[in-house]
């Protein structure tokens, strides 16, 4: 069976890969958007923290035999904790300055983490053994869907939607949104805004680490894995605009699929298609698809 002269197997296969990539774009751009909303910092370390999440899971498994499921909990906690330390000791000193200093600081931190991991583990990737329960695939009739990939898509949708729910529909989220609008006023109502900022950064970082753990069995666990994805995620963020949480999620998934489809129809452009989309969006709607011009 063929669609537009492309065998359906290949088409759906690439579509699936695109959906998986999209899941990671969505989770990472979601974290960036949450952090940016409250801290006004573009977290350049996000890619490195995603990589550290993957490495954390890999180390837990290789050194102590900690299972994938525990890693899903422990790695984000550990990396999120380092995020809290970073926010308390460094980022919090920069809030009164131009936002660009936050970008420069987190860029420096990304270089440090990436450099250290490269020095200790080399630049080649380490494979992460897939948990037993995920071996095999579902037969959907028109294609085979490996169990783990199905899980990644499902889990990322759940993570994204629950984050959206917490921020948009709960009391805690309303404090968060209020603090984004006017931190001084929220502070005056007796809410500890600095602590909220710290925890928000920690949560955003934990989200990146969680994405890293989920990515570990799919991609090689390598020190460079974060640097390559973060620039694409930046483009995703520019396309979506950072005004809306749901916007970040939708843009992430949509661009993953666009990338996958490009691999089918014009593979040479698959690396660059997201940047091309970014250029088009900038020309038509500079504030981004879901953004509001300030």
């Amino acid at each position, binding site marked *: 069976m063929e669609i537009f002269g492309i065998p359906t197997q290949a088409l759906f296969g690439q579509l699936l890969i695109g959906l998986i990539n999209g899941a990671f774009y969505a989770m990472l751009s979601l974290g960036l958007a949450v952090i940016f909303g409250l801290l006004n910092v*573009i977290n350049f370390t996000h890619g490195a923290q995603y990589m550290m999440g993957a490495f954390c899971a890999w180390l837990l498994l290789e050194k102590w035999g900690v299972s994938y499921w525990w890693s899903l909990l422990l790695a984000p906690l550990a990396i999120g904790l380092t995020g809290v330390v970073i926010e308390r000791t460094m980022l919090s000193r920069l809030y009164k*300055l131009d936002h*660009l200093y936050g970008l420069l600081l987190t860029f*420096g931190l990304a270089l440090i983490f990436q*450099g250290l991991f490269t*020095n200790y583990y080399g630049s080649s990737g380490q494979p992460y053994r897939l948990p037993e329960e995920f071996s095999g695939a579902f037969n959907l009739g028109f294609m085979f869907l490996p169990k783990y990939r199905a899980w990644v898509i499902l889990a990322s949708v759940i993570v994204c939607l629950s984050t959206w729910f917490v921020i948009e529909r709960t009391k805690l989220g309303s404090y968060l949104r209020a603090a984004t609008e006017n931190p001084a006023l929220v502070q005056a109502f007796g809410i500890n805004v600095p602590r909220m900022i710290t925890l928000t950064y920690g949560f955003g970082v934990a989200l990146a680490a969680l994405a890293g753990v989920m990515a570990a069995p799919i991609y090689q666990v390598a020190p460079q894995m974060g640097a390559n994805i973060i*620039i694409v995620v*930046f483009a995703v963020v*520019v396309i979506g605009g950072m005004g809306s949480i749901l916007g970040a999620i939708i843009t992430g998934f949509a661009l993953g699929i666009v990338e996958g489809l490009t691999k089918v129809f014009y593979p040479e452009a698959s690396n660059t298609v997201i940047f091309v989309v970014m250029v088009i969006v900038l020309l038509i709607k500079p504030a981004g698809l879901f953004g509001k011009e300030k």
Partner: protein
Amino acid sequence: MAIATTSAAVPSRRTMLIATTVMTLVLILAPLLGVYPVFLMKALCFALFACAFNLLIGFGGLLSFGHAMFLGTAGYVCAHAAKEWGWPPEIAILSGTLAAAAMGCVVGLLAIRRQGIYFAMITLALAQMVYFFYLQAPFTHGEDGIQAVPRGKLFGLLDLSNTLILYYVVLAIFLAAFLLINRIVHSPFGQVLKAIRENEPRAVSLGYDAEKYKFLAFVLSATLAGLAGATKAIVFQLASLTDAHWTMSGEVVLMTLLGGMGTIFGPVVGAFTIIGIENYLSEGVTVFGMTFGAQWVTVITGVIFVICVLAFRRGIVGELSAWWARRQD
């Protein structure tokens, strides 16, 4: 709120003249006093690159995280023109520079549509797109790069295969660009640019077309970065992917930050310091029984970034001139 506060660090005309003269003399004498000319040429190319970058961030307040695309593009075009088409070096360098200028026009038009953090992300993303293009385009020879680029004879007279002659040519290019940047900064155009950096709505209300000024500054900066890239390709007889990679964009940010954003001499000092450190590390340094080699460059670069941002935002030259200003009072 501007990223570089340089109000305390505006040197007088006399100080500028003395400092420029001293710098020129030191650079003329350096290879004669035994400093390795290839190191000096590398540092000069990066100093020019950093000066071009500084024109944008220091005086226009625009942080570009993609300047490597101009360095890389100019390098590739210059190397291709000199090697494949056999063009003389001056024309090859010119063509590389013009290619960067053309790219600067296109990227500038897109990037200035957003400000601040978005501007940085857009330039980074566009540079990554350019990088992927060079990774796949056949004329760049992928990972190998364009090797064995002939240096040729400048104007048919000066044999650039002589390292010392090449050095003085590179020095002349650097000084010409340096003086040009100095001139731009102190021109009415430069003053308007600074006004836009400090308070864009106010500059607009005074009737200045902020977009136009920012665009011009972007193209100028891209062109001069291209000049650095093209010269570098002739000096090292190589154009490679390294020059177009995002780490190169980060490196030029670091040089400018370390030397002092918005100062005239800062980028030069920053470039010499960073290239010096890299040179030093390439042989390996032993501290407390641990050997730090070239693979530590990334980590050390990151550490310098963090220290600069947290404690040293004015950079070397900025701190020095602030100290000097305090002493004068």
